[in-house]
Structure formats: C-alpha cells, structure tokens
C-alpha cells in the first residue's frame, strides 16, 4: 500500500502528486478514487483523505496522479511531499463511471478540482468512439483545472468563472443548457461540489438525458465499513436508502440522488425514525 512519490507539480491553484502504485494503476477505471494517509508516523490525523484519480500511467509499473487544493492540515501536508517521499495509498476505491455501449455524445462538466476526474473518463469515452465536449468552471481562472487539456481533447470546451477572469462569467450550470442543445448531447458526466451536481442534474433532467455524477461526502474509511459517507439515494425499487458514497458511489445517476435531502434522513427513507418503512425488511 505504500507508494513512492514520483513527481510533484503545481497547476495554478492546485497541487498534483504522481505516485508509483502499480497495484492501483492496474485496476483503475475512470471515477475511482484513492484514500491517502496523511501526516506521517505518529500523526494526530487518523482518517485517510479521499482524492479522485486524475491520471494513471504505465511508468515504473504503474503510477497514479491526483490533483488537490490545500484546504486543511491534511492537504497542507500533502502539498509538502517531494519526489521519493513514501505515500500510503489505498485503492482504487469506489464505483467507476458507467460508460455507454454506443458512440454517443457526452458533455463532461467539472467545477473546481472536480474537473481533474474527467480526463480519464473522456479518454475512455473517446476510446469507445464517443464525442466529448467539456464544460469546466471555477471561482477564478486559476481554479479552472485542465482548460488546456480539455481544449485539446474535447470537440468544444466552454469555460466559466464566477469572477469572469476566464471564459464566461457565471457557473457551469448557466452555460450547460446551451452546450447540451448545441452538441445534441446524449449524456452528461459531472464532478464538483454538491450544489453544482444538483444544478447539472436538473439541467439533464430537463433535457431528459442520463447524467452521472460523482459526489464527495465526508469519509472516514472509503471502504464501506464506517457508514459515515451516506446520502439519500432512490433505488431501482423506488425506495430511498441512506447509501454509502464510498462503495455504492461516488458515482450515481444524478436523478437518483435526493440532493435537496442531503444532510437529512428523508422521512420516507428505509429505516427513517418513525417513518412508514419501519419494520420493512
């Protein structure tokens, strides 16, 4: 589980670490994430940090790259890693993005570090003959990750920033309807903050096309044992369950996620306190 940092780089507001981790690279599929131990020996930081895999490469038996912004002490520690430092990773974790069988047109929507997740998805889609268009956003130009690469890979790339410093002023959801209409999209893939995923899902539902979203919930384990990362998701049977985003997600069909009820236990969820489904097996 202990890999070695191969390279570190800064990309605008983000840091990227490439780690030699053949066991993870080998089994990787787009949408997977890794759990990274932070702080080194005797650290007081007990929980692993989750990061989407940005890229995998075959070098040195297999490397994994992830992209992050410094947010708290764990990411601050990661930002100080240097080449050759050991790094303890668990992965690949989570359910990857389902890919269409047919060569359809897909819009890939990313905000902030969420964009980093999209490029392996784009690769895989293009490998199946899909057309890929990007919509990437962020607060400001330095927080829009991967614009250049998107321009190289995508048929079209639309950028948004809240402050107007790059692309259109506004949010990805402001431009998404136009893009979907223009490219006649068949499906949407989205990564980013919950609020954005909710908006993207609403747009896709409007256009009646499938949307796959990758959510981020606070995770203590990433492997399905702690039950802390749940959110209300409607199952095939129509029943809402509190499902774990680490093993049943992080990728969900957008319209199945009850975005408005995240952070609550909906009264009609299976096992909700005093709910109608109490005593339903």
């Amino acid at each position, binding site marked *: 589980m202990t890999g070695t940092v191969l390279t570190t780089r800064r990309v605008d507001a983000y840091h990227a670490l490439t780690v030699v981790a053949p066991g993870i690279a080998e089994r990787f599929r787009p949408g997977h994430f890794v759990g990274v131990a932070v702080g080194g020996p005797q650290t007081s930081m007990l929980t*692993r940090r989750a990061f989407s895999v940005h890229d995998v490469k075959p070098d040195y038996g297999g490397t994994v790259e992830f992209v992050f912004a410094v947010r708290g002490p764990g990411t601050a520690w990661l930002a100080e890693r240097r080449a050759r430092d050991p790094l303890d990773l668990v992965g690949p974790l989570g359910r990857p993005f389902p890919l269409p069988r047919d060569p359809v047109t897909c819009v890939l929507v990313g905000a902030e570090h969420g964009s980093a997740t999209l490029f392996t998805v784009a690769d895989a889609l293009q490998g199946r003959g899909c057309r890929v268009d990007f919509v990437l956003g962020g607060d400001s130009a330095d927080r829009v990750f991967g614009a250049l690469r998107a321009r190289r890979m995508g048929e079209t790339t639309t950028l948004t920033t809240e402050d107007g410093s790059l692309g259109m002023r506004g949010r990805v959801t402001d431009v998404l309807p136009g893009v979907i209409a223009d490219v006649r999209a068949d499906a949407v893939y989205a990564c980013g903050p919950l609020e954005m995923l909710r908006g993207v899902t609403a747009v896709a539902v409007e256009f009646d096309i499938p949307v796959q979203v990758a959510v981020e919930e606070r995770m203590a384990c990433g492997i399905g*044992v702690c039950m802390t990362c749940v959110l209300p998701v409607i199952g095939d049977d129509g029943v809402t369950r509190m499902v774990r985003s680490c093993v049943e997600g992080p990728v969900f069909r957008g319209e199945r996620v009850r975005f408005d009820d995240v952070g609550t*236990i909906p009264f009609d969820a299976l*096992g909700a306190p005093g709910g109608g489904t109490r*005593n339903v*097996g």
Partner: protein
Amino acid sequence: MRTYLGHVELANPVTTAAGCAASGSELAQFFDLARIGALTTRSITMAPRAGRPTPRMAETPSGMLNAVGLQGPGVDAFLERELPWLAQRGVRTVVSIGGGTVAEYTALARRLTDAPGVTAVEVNLSCPNIEDRGRVFARDGAASAEVIASVRSVMRYDVPVVAKLSPDVMDIVSIARACVDGGADALSMINNPLGMSIDTEAMRPSLAAVTGGLSGPAIRPLAVRCVWQVHAALPSVPVIGMGGVLTGRDAFELILAGACVVAVGTALFHDPYACLRILRELEELLAARGFHRLADAVGLAHRPPGAPTRHRTDLEESSL
C-alpha cells in the same frame, strides 16, 4: 494464540469492534475473515435503521467523532443475509445487539437463539433507554443488569453474553459488577465516550447530531484504565478490550491491563488490513518476550512490583 471468551475458544485474540466492519463482506476483499479471532457485527436492531443525518464524522486530534446512529438493515435482513454469509465462510461471529427497551434487547436475543453461527452476543448498552427519558443503559447499573439478565435468560447456554460498557460513568467497576451479577459471561469495553467538535468556519457543531462518539488512539488511556480497574476488581471475568488500538503494541497494552480479547475499530478505517497486522505484531511482541501462551500475559501488569513475570500460568484454565 488461542484465547477464551467464557468457554468459547477463539483461534486468536483479535476481533473487529462493533459497528466498524459493516456486514463483514466489505473487509473480505482485503483478507480472509476466518483468520481473525472473531468478527463483531454492527449493533443489530429490530427494525431497519437509516441512522443519523450527515455529517456523521469529524476528525479530532488522534481520534474521530462519529454519529452514525446504528444504521443497519434490521434483524430480519441480518439473519437472512449477513449472518449466513459469515457462517458459510466459517467466520466466528460476535453479534452485537442494540435496543431501546429491555423487551427489545430480549426479543433480539430470542431471534438469535436458533440462528446458526452466533459465537457470542455482545450487548451494546450505550443505547438510550426510551423508558427512562432516553438515559443510556450503560450509565445505570440496574438498567444494564436488567438487560443482561433478560438476554442471558433467553440465549442458549453455550453462547456467551458479553456486556459492552461505556466509559461515561462515575464508576465503571460498579456497572461491570452489576452486569456480571446480572449474568454477563464477559465484559467489553470501552464504547465511545461522548464528544463534540465545532467547525470554527461555519461556527456550528461539526456533526449533524451535534454530539458523537469519540474513538481512536485519543481514548486509549481511558480504555486501558477501564480494563485495568475492572480486571483488578473482577479478575476472573474475561474482558474484550478496545479503544484506540492501532498496533500490536497497543493490543498488548490492553492485554497487560487485563483483556483476553482485543477489538479493533477505528484502525480499520485507516488500514483495512489492521486486524491481521495487529495480530502479527502482537504475536511477535509476545514471542520476543518469551510468552508461550496469551493467557500468561493477560493482566500481567497487575502483578505486584518485583514479582516474576510468569506467575499467572494458571490463568488460561480459569479465564471464565
């Protein structure tokens, strides 16, 4: 490195802690569950439970807070799917149960009586007693004893009943004693002390449930103290020790304090292989110190100063 929980033999002393291994199958991708002493289930409740809203966890110095709220499928689904899955794989299973009334605990125990594959029943007493204004059973010796006595009376005689205690009490020994008097075959400690943290950015409690259970190495000194005090008072009662065990050294610490089984909880979140690693480290530590049997180390730190280290070789036989 076999050990005994009451008269039940376990191949080794390392188990998972209740609620830290979900249904078991999640960990099975990482290692063969039959290789650990036992797997302890999450606390099973009568009805399915959706648990608490999120955020359910917050990291704290050398620990974490959780407020999961016993999310689980309910006893029917547990007996139908989870327990048989474990039994088929030969996994020794300690079934943890949680309830809001003595009757609910008893009903759960009754459901387990005929179920194949129940190695022991651990009674999670850290549940609010809905008949006593939500006061947690574990904080009240009489209520705890009542639950234990009732569960004991319906369980098969050959399935040990383990009372799981909370450190949030004035005197853990008196609660332990009440449980043993009530019929507990073994004691398990410690459940999470109640803690809280505040997100200073949002200026609000970090957890949706406001307070949560503290776990991890931060609480190990409380766990060692509780195990020590209870073993000193009730040396013949087997104790499952838990609380912040990350390494074989930590497990050994609880064993020296008096535990004959050690459960691993939060460490699993950090290291899915924690149980087997801890077991290996513990075996190495014991071997390096010349112990041939685990029982020789159980409670050894209680020996009077100057006493030889090997004076308790009769412990294994009398561990019930």
